[in-house]
């Protein structure tokens, strides 16, 4: 770990040294940007396995980035992102604990008392990207293409400590019932997960956008970002099984990064 830190420090140091001595124009001599970005993608939720409620939502991913202009046409950025989402939590009885696909064969009844609603999952991304400015634009101003990679980290807390209000639980179970009846499914019991989980993933990014500068120091960025990461298809989540949680998380990660509208604001110096 020490070695990695040392190498990282060395790489960043070399990069900054190169930029400082490169006599790059930047924007009127200003080459660095500290910025906040909001990446949002619209989703339609059914209210039980997604966010608590029905409707169209803009799911946001928040990013704090540092960008450095490396040439007349390029910017390199380091980004740290954070987002959180919910997932419905269930625990199948031993009869059906293995594969949710077997649910259709179940004849047990669904016990509302053992339903515990949602579990908050926190996602953290760290990544690096490069912006290539188009035609006659001079970085950091104007239209650009962006390519990058993100390292995704997810934390699923120990659900024993998560408590929900009665109304939330009722609402959730009501939605869950509707879902089951719609799909001719039945469940006997649902219980809490007993332990926390962590996952790591990678995502490749591609983006387009345009940056403008106001009052010489404020940079505003509007664009779109497309990401490709791990993908899975899973509706129900058995918290006793890490593999299922992972699948569920992967599905959400994929959706979180696939198409995003980006609005960023930064300070140029």
């Amino acid at each position, binding site marked *: 770990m020490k070695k990695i830190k040392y190498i990282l420090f060395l790489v960043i140091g070399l990069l900054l040294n190169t930029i400082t001595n*490169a*006599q*790059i*124009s930047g*924007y*009127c*001599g200003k080459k660095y940007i500290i910025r906040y970005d909001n990446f949002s993608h*619209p989703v339609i939720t059914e209210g039980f396995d997604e966010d608590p409620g029905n409707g169209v939502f803009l799911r946001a991913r928040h990013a704090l980035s540092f960008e450095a202009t490396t*040439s*007349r*046409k*390029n910017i390199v950025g380091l980004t740290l992102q954070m987002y959180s989402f919910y997932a419905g939590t269930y625990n199948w009885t031993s009869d059906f604990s293995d594969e949710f696909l077997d649910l259709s064969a179940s004849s047990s009844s669904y016990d509302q008392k053992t339903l515990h609603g949602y579990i908050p999952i926190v996602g953290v991304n760290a990544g690096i990207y490069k912006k290539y400015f188009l035609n*006659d*634009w*001079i970085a950091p*101003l*104007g239209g650009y293409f962006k390519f990058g990679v993100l390292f995704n980290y997810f934390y699923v807390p120990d659900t024993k400590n998560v408590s929900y209000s009665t109304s939330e639980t009722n609402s959730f179970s009501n939605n869950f019932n509707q879902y089951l009846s719609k799909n001719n499914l039945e469940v006997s019991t649902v219980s809490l997960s007993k332990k926390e989980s962590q996952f790591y993933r990678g995502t490749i990014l591609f983006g387009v956008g345009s940056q*403008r*500068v*106001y009052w*010489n120091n404020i940079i505003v960025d509007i664009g779109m970002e497309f990401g490709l990461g791990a993908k899975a298809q899973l509706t129900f989540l058995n918290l006793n099984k890490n593999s299922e949680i992972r699948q569920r998380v992967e599905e959400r990660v994929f959706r979180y990064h696939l198409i995003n*509208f980006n609005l960023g604001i930064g300070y140029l110096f």
Partner: protein
Amino acid sequence: MKHFLLATLTVFCWCFGFSQQSTKNPYIHCNNPIPKVFHSSPKETVLDSIARLNKNEKRFDRKNKERFILESNFYLDQFYKSGYVCFNDSITRYIESVAKKLLKNNPGLYEQFRFYTLRTSEVNSFCTSDGAVFVTQGLLAQLENEAQLAFVLSHELIHYLKKHAINAYVKDEQIKNERGNYQDIESQKKELLMSSYSRENEAESDSLGFLNIYSKSGYKLEAAISIFNVLLYSDLPIDEIPFNKSFFEGSEYHFPDEYTLKEVKKISTIEDINDEKLSHPNIKKRKLMIKKLIKDKSKGELYLVSKERFDQIKKINQYDLSSLYILDRDYGSAIYNSYILLKKDPQDNYLKETIAESLYYIYKYSNYGERNKVLKNWDNIEGQSQQLFHFLYQLSNEELRQLAFRELWTISQKNISNQLLSRMLESLSIDFFENQRFTLSEIETAVNYNPTDTLNAVDTSEEYISKLNKYEKIEREKHIDPLKTMKLISIASLVIDKKAGEPKFMTDFFSKIKLRYDSLKVVDEFKNSKKGRRLDKQLDKTGLALNIDKLMIFDPFYYKIDERKKTEVLYFDADEKKKRLEEQYSTFSNDLQISSQIFDYNNLTETDAEKFNDFSIIKLWDDQQSEIGDKSIVNYLQCDLQQVAQKYGVKHIAFTGAIAYRKKKNDIGSTLVGSLALSLYFPPAFLYGIYYSVTPIYLCYYSMNVYDCTTGQQVMKTKVIQEERETNDIRSSFIYDALNQIKRNKK
């Protein structure tokens, strides 16, 4: 640029003759004090003139008058600062003295006018609505006496007094827009109506100018008729002298007889042409009208100022014409003009130089396949000059190069200090190496060769060969490489009239050129190599590193154009923006530690005539350079620019500016449909679609061209076009980046 300005001016000015054009002048210089129009913005004048308009006038007419005042003043502003207009110089002072004689009975009226000389070979004069009278050098070179000039001025003064320019503009707008009495008119008839009104004004200027001004001044009345002959034959040279190709030949240097026309076309210009579509009545009508007004032809004097002065001014203008033609890229006319003057003054080196320089340009442009652009088609020319144009058209590129070199070499030996000739010689010689692949030993052999022997050596005529005996024939076949011999002839013919010592000079000269050629070749080879091409691509990313500390930024321009408005050019906004642009250049230059001097006409004071003359040289140089473009051709004003640069302690000059452009969108429908479709997934897209549809198309353009004043080489060529509104951030980004590339010293 020059042609654009002059063409536009015809809309706002009232001309005496037909059309007009450009130039440099080795004799005339502007002197203090500088008239206000040359060093200030026309903003105040415009506002003042608009305020003085009659408010009770019809709205349509008043609006058009306002537009006329606005547009004409800003166009004139560019014209005053184009480098072509001279004030307080010897020629203009002479014109003023003639005008004073004309208006001696009305000195108050004289004060309303300003007189200027135009550096152009065109034969014309015109007057603006604010009383500025321009007389071209081309006209002054062709006039026969002072009285003719006086009549021309009388004519122009009436245009001003009768406000012909502004009234014609309003009338044209009425006709174009079918207002008032001009409703439901066919488009063809509209043009006829407009030219008819113009002819009426011209006739009025002729008659009133004659009656009210000219006839009362004491000038000879008959001269008012003879001036029309000058106008009638204004497209002809200053004289009609037969051209003989022997002018370019030497004792052993001849051109084939086929290069000579048996006879030249006769001049077919007639007085009584159909003037239905012309802006001026035909010459016959104009002459007749004046004849009717003259009662006593012999009355008056041809000269009221001075005959000597007139002759002197005429001579200056005739000599200047050769340079003016060169600046106009009319090289054939330049040669013929100098040819005519050399008949009177065979020892004049200036005239010989202009001939050599013109030949250089004809060769150079021919080498780029543009001979027809710089040489009028000989078939369309009438008169004695046709012979010269025909001759020049017959010459191959090789022959032209030889001829230009011979002339340049000969004249440069007489004037070694002439840097322009040296540069042209160098440029030509590099072409010799490029085209004929000389080696230095070949040059040495050739320049010391007896030309006659050389010519004989490759004489392939049967007559020559039949004279050789068997062994001579064998030797000839054995030892003579025809290709090599051709090269030797080629070089030898350069010094065919060699004098003592010249071969040595030429060998030295070519040795230097060879070195220069080799170094250029190395650069060229590198550019075309894989590495060179890669470097070229990289330059786009990294930018240039010119390592320039001192820079002259010359008169940055800013144009604001809105196609949606009737007055498309937004002059007032642009005026303000230009100031801001200059401030930015200044600020960023300081930030980057570039010692920059911003040359702006509006920053001059009225005692800065010397600076104004320098500005004119820079302007004219730039005009020439825009014609030359990327071609490897020496700018006619290169040495003049170098001197100016040295005077201000800089080596590089930048021409820069911005254009903000706006126009209406045409594809609103498809945009709305597209945004509607996208809004199914992302609702705000529809709002954006509406916003996009209602906003116009914006374009902004920036350019920065930097030249080395010593070599004339373009060291930086940056151009940015964005489909964006012209905003402070884009402008700042471009300016800073351009200056940063200029300052950077990274290899």
